[in-house]
């Protein structure tokens, strides 16, 4: 059974925002809603600037699904987390629960009124009949039903963003890391994520101008 996931390689992402544009264009996402966005840290710092493309990560144990008071979320057979806009009440609990900030709320009226939640669907549409107009209007295009992968991943020019079965894309990433050789402590950010090497050990090479 496939478990559809995204994986973004920060060593490859060039912050072109092609994934963001592809998503917007593919699903005709309204103004103010960003199902996918590129996050950059250390902007402008040579050697330390890193970008990553973020959207719904289709968690195996999704917190949005756990907190939804109307239980509008569901998981498809291939592991994609989707929701039913006919049930959503726009309460925003999922937004607070999501560690990736994936749920988006269109400004549906005056006084900051929140509309129904919108998020990345892994290009799998929603609970309306597949490829129907109703599905497109509410959830966007259903590319999985056409035998295709999400538009963002297929559009990515540097193939930083991978989409597909978790095992398959993890294998691709593993192969890539082995080829380029920066695995373990040589990788940028290792020190921040996993701590500094013990005293007396050879320090890892830090990029110029950046803090690892």
């Amino acid at each position, binding site marked *: 059974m*496939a478990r559809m996931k995204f994986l973004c390689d920060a060593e490859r992402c060039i912050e072109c925002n092609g994934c963001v544009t592809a998503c917007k264009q593919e699903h005709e996402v309204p103004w103010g809603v960003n199902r996918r966005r590129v996050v950059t840290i250390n902007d402008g710092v040579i050697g330390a600037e890193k970008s990553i493309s973020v959207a719904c990560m289709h968690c195996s144990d*999704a917190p949005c*699904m*756990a907190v*939804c008071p*109307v*239980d*509008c*979320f*569901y*998981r*498809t*057979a*291939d592991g994609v987390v*989707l*929701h*039913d806009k006919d*049930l959503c009440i726009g309460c925003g609990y999922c937004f607070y629960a999501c560690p990736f900030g994936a749920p988006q709320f269109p400004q549906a009226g005056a006084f900051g009124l929140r509309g129904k939640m919108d998020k990345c669907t892994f290009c*799998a*549409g*929603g*609970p309306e*009949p*597949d*490829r129907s107009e109703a599905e497109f209007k509410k959830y966007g295009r*259903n590319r*999985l*039903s*056409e*035998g*295709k*992968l999400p538009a963002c*991943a297929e559009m990515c020019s540097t*193939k930083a963003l*991978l*989409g*597909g*079965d978790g095992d*398959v*894309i993890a294998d*691709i990433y593993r*192969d*890539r890391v082995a*080829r380029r050789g920066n695995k373990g402590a040589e990788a940028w950010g290792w020190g921040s994520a996993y701590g500094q090497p013990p005293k007396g050990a050879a320090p890892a090479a830090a990029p110029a101008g950046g803090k690892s």
Partner: protein
Amino acid sequence: MKRAALIAVVALFAAGCMEVEQTVTAEQRQAGSTVKRDTAAWNNEPLANGPKWAKGDRNSWEEQIKKRQLAQNESVRIGN
């Protein structure tokens, strides 16, 4: 006094009768179990000019989409 006590007891029992049953079944308690009306991707007819699989056959759909996933690895795609 006796009458007031009787009214209080009746009111107490009536309040109990008005209580709505709120216990849920184990199935309802499971998050993500409410929405059941989505169609699986492999139950669709392939597009005329798109990737092909046998309608309703999950394995053939997974096989073709796996090829597409592997094509994201340029080292394999260009034979490096």
